[in-house]
C-alpha cells in the first residue's frame, strides 16, 4: 500500500477525477495502511510498550474506524440525492508484462465504503474486547499484531481495484486466519484446525486462480475490476468463458465463505481464541467470498444466468447451505460450534440472495449479520470466560442471573438472528426472501425470476434458525448451573462492546426500510440500497423485488413456529422434568431420538456432520498423503533411479567387457604383448571405475557423446 503514496494519480479512464472527490474517499488507502503499520510496529517494539503493544493496535484500528465513518459520510454527500454516483478510483503502476502495464489501486464506491465501516467497527470492538479476554496470554503482543494484520488484509481486499490485488488480499486474510486459529499451537487439535482451514481454502483457491485467469483473458487482458465488469455488462465478453469463470470462482467462494461442501473447516476454526472467531465470522475472512461475488457481480450475473432462470448453481449452493448448515447447529454442544454452523447457514442466505439477484439484500444481510453475529460470538466468549468452558451441557446452565449483561445482549442478538421483527435480522432476511421473486401471494413479486424453491428453503431455514437458537438460550442461560466454577459477570471491556453490538443488532435494520413501508418516512426508505448498490456501467441491470406484507407475516410466523417448537421442548418439557427430578437436565431421556428410529438415524447423521470430515480427512487427504505420495516416491526410488543406476552399472560392465575381451584379450595379447607394463597402469585406472573414479565415467560418457555428435552432424547435414 505504501507504493500508493509515491505516485497516486487519477486513472485516465477512471469514472471520476480524484481532484473532485472528497479527501476521505480519495485517501481511503490510509484505512488499511494504518493497521498494516501497527502490525509492523507491534512486532518491532510492542513488547516494550506499557500495554504490550495492544495500544498500538487499538489506536490504529480506531483511527481507521474514524476514517471509514468519515468516508461513509463523504460518500453519502458525494452521492447526494442523485440516482448514481461515480466510483472513486486511484491507481499506480504495479507491474508490467508483455509491454502492458498493470496497476494497483483503490476502488471506492458504496460497496467498499460499507465494508470499510463494518470491518473497522467490528475489529475495533474485538480489539477492545481482546484486551481483557486474552489478558495474561503468553503471546498477547503477538496476538494483537496479527489482529492488526488480519484487519489490514481484509481492508486491503475490499478496496482492491483489480483482480490480482483481490487475490493478494484474499490469501493474506487466509494466512492471518491460519496464524490466529493456530494461536495456541501447543495443542495438536489447534494446529490441526489451522491447517484444515488453510488447506480447505487452498482447495477453493484452485478455483480462484483458474477463474481469475479465465476472466483476465476473457475480458481482453485486463485485471482492472471496473474494466472487466464494464466489458461484461456491455456484452463484450463470451458467455461460455463467463460460465467457466463463475463456476471456478464459486469454488473459491465455497471454501472461503464456508458453503457446502467445503464448509468443514469453519466449525473447526473455533479452536482459535474467541475474539478471532468473532472477527472471522462476522466481518472478515468468511464474508470475503460474499464480497467477491458482489464485487464481480457481472461475472455471476451473466455466467450463472441469474436474470433468466428459476434455479442456478449459486442460488442452489446457498440454499442447500442455509438449510443443511442450520440443521447441523442442532446437534452441537459446544456453544461456539452452534454459532459456527449458524454462520455457515447465514452465509448461505447471502449466497442464495446473490444467486437470485437480490444483490442489495445480500449486502444488507452481510451488514446486519456482522453486528449480531459478532455480538453472539463475543457473548459466548464472555460466558465461557465465566463458566470455564464452551460445552453448553457441561459448563453452562442458568447463567442469566450471574451474567445479566451478557444475557441481555446475547438475547437481543439471538432475536435479531432469528429474524423476528423489529430487529435487524428481520429486515435483511425478509428482503432476501422477497428477493427470490418466488412469492406470488397478495402481491410482492418481481425480482429476477421465480426462485420458488429458494424461497421455500429460505423459509425452512428461518424455522431451523429460530429453533436452534432457542436451544442455545435454554442450555446456556436457563435451568441450573451445571459447571464447577463460580460464574460472574465479565468486566467493562467485554460488556461495553457487547452492548454496542447489541444496539446495532436493534437499529441496523433501519438503514434499509422497505420501499412503501408506511410507518417510515419515505425519504428514509431503502437508504442502504440507494447508497450501496451501484447504478453504473460496471454493474448489471438487476431487477428489484417489491416487498410484501404477506411474506413478512408468513416468515415471521414460520420463525416463531420454529422457536415455539424448541421452546415447548426445552422451556416446558425439559424444564418440568428437571424440576421434577431435582437436577439440571439438558434433554429428555425419552425424547424423540430415543423413541423413533428415523429420528435417531437423522440425529446420528447430523452428529457425524454428514460424514464430510471422514471423506476429506480420512479418504482424500489420507489418500494423497499416504498411498499416492508413497507410490510416487516408490516410482522415484525403484523405477527412475533403478534405470539411472542400471545405466551406470551397465556402462561400467560394458567398459569392463571391452577392456577384458578387446583390450586385454585381443589387442593386448595378440598385438602388443610386449608392451604389457603400460597397460597395467591403464588397468589400474579402469578398475578404478567401479570404485567410483568419476573422471573415467565422465571420459567414457563424454567420448560417447562426442562420437554421437559427429555422427549426428554428418547425418543432419547430408
Amino acid at each position, binding site marked *: 500500500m*505504501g*507504493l500508493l503514496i509515491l505516485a497516486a494519480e487519477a486513472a485516465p479512464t477512471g469514472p471520476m477525477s480524484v481532484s473532485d472527490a472528497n479527501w476521505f474517499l480519495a485517501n481511503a488507502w490510509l484505512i488499511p495502511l494504518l493497521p498494516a503499520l501497527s502490525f509492523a510496529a507491534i512486532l518491532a517494539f510492542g513488547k516494550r510498550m506499557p500495554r504490550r503493544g495492544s495500544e498500538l493496535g487499538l489506536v490504529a484500528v480506531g483511527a481507521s474506524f474514524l476514517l471509514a465513518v468519515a468516508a461513509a459520510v463523504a460518500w453519502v454527500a458525494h452521492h447526494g440525492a442523485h440516482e448514481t454516483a461515480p466510483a472513486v478510483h486511484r491507481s499506480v*503502476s*504495479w*507491474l*508490467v*508484462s*508483455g*509491454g502492458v502495464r498493470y496497476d494497483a489501486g483503490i476502488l471506492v464506491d458504496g460497496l467498499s465504503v460499507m465494508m470499510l465501516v463494518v470491518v473497522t467497527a467490528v475489529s475495533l470492538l474485538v480489539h477492545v474486547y481482546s484486551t481483557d479476554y486474552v489478558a495474561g496470554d503468553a503471546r498477547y503482543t503477538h496476538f494483537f499484531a496479527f489482529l492488526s494484520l488480519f484487519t489490514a488484509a481484509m481492508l486491503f481486499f475490499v478496496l482492491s481495484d483489480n483482480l490480482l490485488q483481490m*487475490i*493478494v488480499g*484474499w*490469501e*493474506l486474510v487466509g494466512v492471518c486466519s491460519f496464524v490466529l486459529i*493456530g494461536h495456541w*499451537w*501447543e495443542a*495438536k487439535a489447534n*494446529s*490441526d484446525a489451522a*491447517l484444515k482451514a*488453510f*488447506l480447505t481454502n*487452498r482447495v477453493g*483457491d*484452485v478455483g480462484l*486462480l*483458474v477463474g*481469475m*485467469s*479465465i476472466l*483476465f*483473458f476473457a475480458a481482453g487482458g485486463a485485471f482492472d475490476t471496473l474494466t472487466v465488469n464494464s466489458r461484461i455488462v456491455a456484452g463484450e465478453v463470451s458467455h461460455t468463458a463467463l460460465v467457466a469463470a463463475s463456476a471456478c470462482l464459486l469454488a473459491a467462494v465455497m471454501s472461503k465463505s464456508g458453503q457446502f461442501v467445503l464448509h468443514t473447516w469453519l466449525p473447526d476454526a473455533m479452536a482459535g481464541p474467541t475474539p478471532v472467531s468473532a472477527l472471522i465470522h462476522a466481518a472478515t475472512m468468511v464474508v470475503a467470498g460474499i464480497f467477491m461475488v458482489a464485487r464481480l457481480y457481472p461475472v455471476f450475473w451473466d455466467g450463472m444466468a441469474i436474470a433468466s432462470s428459476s434455479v442456478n448453481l449459486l442460488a442452489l449452493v446457498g440454499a442447500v447451505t442455509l438449510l443443511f448448515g442450520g440443521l447441523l447447529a442442532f446437534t452441537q454442544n459446544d456453544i461456539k460450534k452452534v454459532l459456527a454452523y449458524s454462520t455457515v447457514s447465514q452465509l448461505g442466505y447471502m449466497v442464495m440472495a446473490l444467486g437470485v439477484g437480490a444483490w442489495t439484500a445480500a449486502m444488507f444481510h452481510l451488514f446486519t449479520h456482522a453486528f449480531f453475529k459478532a455480538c453472539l460470538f463475543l457473548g459466548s466468549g464472555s460466558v465461557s470466560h465465566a463458566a470455564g468452558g464452551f460445552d453448553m451441557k457441561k459448563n453452562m446452565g442458568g447463567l442469566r442471573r450471574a451474567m445479566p449483561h451478557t444475557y441481555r445482549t446475547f438475547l437481543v442478538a439471538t432475536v435479531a438472528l432469528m429474524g423476528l421483527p423489529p430487529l435487524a435480522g428481520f429486515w435483511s432476511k425478509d428482503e432476501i426472501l422477497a428477493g427470490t421473486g418466488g412469492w406470488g401471494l397478495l402481491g410482492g413479486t418481481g425480482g429476477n425470476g421465480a426462485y420458488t424453491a429458494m424461497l421455500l428453503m429460505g423459509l425452512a431455514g428461518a424455522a431451523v434458525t429460530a429453533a436452534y437458537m432457542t436451544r442455545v438460550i435454554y442450555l446456556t442461560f436457563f435451568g441450573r448451573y451445571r459447571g464447577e466454577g463460580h460464574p460472574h459477570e465479565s468486566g467493562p471491556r467485554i460488556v461495553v462492546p457487547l452492548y454496542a453490538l447489541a444496539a446495532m443488532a436493534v437499529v441496523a435494520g433501519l438503514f434499509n426500510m422497505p420501499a412503501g413501508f408506511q410507518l417510515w418516512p419515505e425519504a428514509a426508505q431503502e437508504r442502504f440500497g440507494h447508497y450501496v448498490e451501484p447504478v453504473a456501467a460496471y454493474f448489471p441491470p438487476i431487477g428489484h423485488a417489491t416487498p410484501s406484507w404477506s411474506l413478512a407475516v408468513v416468515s415471521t410466523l414460520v420463525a416463531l413456529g420454529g422457536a415455539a417448537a424448541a421452546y415447548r421442548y426445552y422451556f416446558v418439557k425439559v424444564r418440568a422434568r428437571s424440576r421434577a427430578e431435582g437436577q439440571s437436565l439438558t434433554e429428555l431421556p425419552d425424547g424423540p431420538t430415543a423413541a423413533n428410529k428415523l429420528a435417531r438415524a437423522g440425529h446420528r447423521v447430523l452428529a457425524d456432520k454428514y460424514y464430510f470430515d471422514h471423506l476429506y480427512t480420512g479418504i482424500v*487427504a489420507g489418500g494423497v*498423503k499416504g498411498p*499416492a*505420495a508413497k*507410490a*510416487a*516416491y516408490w516410482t*522415484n526410488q525403484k523405477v*527412475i*533411479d533403478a534405470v*539411472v543406476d542400471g545405466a*551406470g552399472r551397465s556402462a561400467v560392465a560394458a567398459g569392463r567387457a571391452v577392456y577384458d575381451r578387446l583390450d586385454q584379450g585381443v589387442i593386448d595379447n595378440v598385438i602388443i604383448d610386449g608392451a604389457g607394463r603400460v597397460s597395467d597402469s591403464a588397468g589400474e585406472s579402469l578398475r578404478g571405475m567401479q570404485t*567410483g573414479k*568419476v573422471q573415467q*565415467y*565422465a571420459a567414457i*560418457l*563424454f567420448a*560417447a*557423446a*562426442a562420437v*554421437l*555428435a559427429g555422427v*549426428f*552432424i554428418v547425418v*543432419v*547435414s547430408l
Partner: protein
Amino acid sequence: MIDFLDAWGLTLVTFVPAVGALVMMAVPGHAESAHKRIAMAASLAAAAMGVLLLAGFDYGAAGSLQFQADLGWIDVINSRYILGLDGISLPLLALTLAVVPLCVIYSWNHIPEPGNPKAFLILMLILETGMVGTFLAQDLILFFVFFEVVLLPMFFMIGVWGGENRRYASIKFFLFTLFGSALMLLSFLALFFLSVDPATGEALRTFDMRALTDTAGAGIMLGAQVWIFAGMFIGFGVKVPMFPFHTWLPDAHTEAPTVGSVILAAVLLKLGTYGFVRIAVPMLPAAAEVWAPWIGLLAVIGIIYGALGCLAQTDMKRLIAFSSVAHMGFVMLGIATLTDFGINAAIFGMVAHGIITGMLFFLAGSVKERYHTLEISRLGGMLAQAPRLGWILGFVSMASLGLPGLAGFWGEFPAILSAYNPANGVSTATFRVYMVIAAVGTVLAAGYLLWLLQRTTMGKPPAEFADDPAIVDVTRTEWLAWAPLLAAIVVFGVAPGLIFEVTDPAVVGAIEGCLQLAGGCDGATGAAGAAMGG
C-alpha cells in the same frame, strides 16, 4: 565511469572471484581467518561491481545487451569472447552476486566437516565465476565453458564436505550433468554447422548467440531443428531438473553441505532454465513450438510428482529438495507457453525460488546444527524453544507455497495464468489442462509445507531436546546472512514490478522469433524448403 563499465564491467564482475581464489591458493592453508577475509572481500568486490553495473544499466533499453565485451578468442572455430548484460541476465546476475557473499558469511563459523576452509571457499569463488560467466556469456562455446566450470567445484563440495552418502550423490550429480552437457554441446555444434544467414543464404559458422538469435533457426529444416532442440532440452532439462531427469537432485541436496545446497538451489538450477530462455527458445522458436506441449507435460508432471515426493519424505532437507522439482515445474510451465507473460513469470520464478529455497536450505542447515537431525518425526516445538527460527521457517514456507504478497506468488500465478493462453501454434486445450493441474499443485504445496511446519515448529518440544542447551535462537551470523534474503522476499512480493520492469523488454525481444513464427512453423519449414530447393 560508464566507459569503464562498458569496457571492463562484465569481465571484472566475472573474474574478480576467480582472482580471489588465485590469491587464496597462494596463502597457506592454516591461515584460516585470512582465507575467510579474502573470500569475503572477493565476493563483496564482485557484488560491488554488480551494484555499479546495476546503477549504470540503462533500464530504458533493458531489451538490448549492454556493457558488451567482444574480443577474439578461438579463431579456429570462430568462437569469440562475448559478454553482455540485458534484462534477462540482470536479475539472475544480481541473485548470484548477492547469494555468494551471504554464503561466505554463513560459512564464517559453519565450515562443514572435515574443515579446510581454504579449499571450501576457493571452490565457492570458482563457482561464482562460473555462474556469473554463464549468465553473461553471449557465445555458445564460452557459455559452455562457464557452464562446465560450475560442475567440478560443486562435485567436490558434495563429494568432500557432504553427508554420509556423499560419494554416490556427487557421482550421480556429476554424471547426470555431464551427460546432459554432452548432448547440449552436440546441439551447439549442430547449430554452428547448420545455421544459415537468411539474407545471403550462406552458412553462418558462428557461435555468436546474438547472431544465432537473430536468424532464429532460419534455413534449418524443421526436422533438424527438432533434434537440435532435443539435445538442448536434455542438456538444460537435467540441470533444471525436469522430470524424469531429476533424481540426482534430492541426493545431491540431501548430501551437500548447507551452503552447497543453498548455491545449488539458488543459482545452479537456474542455469538450466536460463538456457531455455536464452538459447533454446529464441534460437529455435519453430522447434520450441513443436516441443512446447511436451515441455509443458513434463513440467506439470514435475509439479504434482515433486509435491507427492515431498509428502512422502521423512527428512526435512530431502523434502525441501523435492519441493524444488515442483517449483521448477512452474518455471518450465511458464517457459513452455512461449508467451511473454509466461517467460516473465519464469524468470521471476527463478529469482523467487532462488531466494526462498536458498533460505529454506539455510534454515535446514541451522536446524541440523542445533538438533543434529533433520528427521521430521523427531523435531517439534521449535516455536517454543527457538521462536524466531520457527517464525522465519513459517514465513519462508508461506513464501514457498506461493502466498500472494510474497515473492513466490509472482512466479507461480502468472505461470498458471499464461498457460490459459499459450502462444499461437501451441495447443490451447492441452495447456488449459496443464493450467488446472498446476493449480492443483499449489494445494499439494500448501499441504507438504504446512505439514512440515506443524511437525517441526508447533506442539511441545520433544523430550529428547526439551532441555538441550544447544537449541538457541537465531544467531548474529545467521541474521546477517538471512536478513537480506528475508527482506527480498517481502520487497519483491510487494513490488513485483522491480523485476518485471527489467525482464519484460528483453523477454519480448527474445521471443519475437516465436511471435513472428506464430504463423507458425509453416514459415520455418517453408524457408527450409526453399533453402533445400536452392
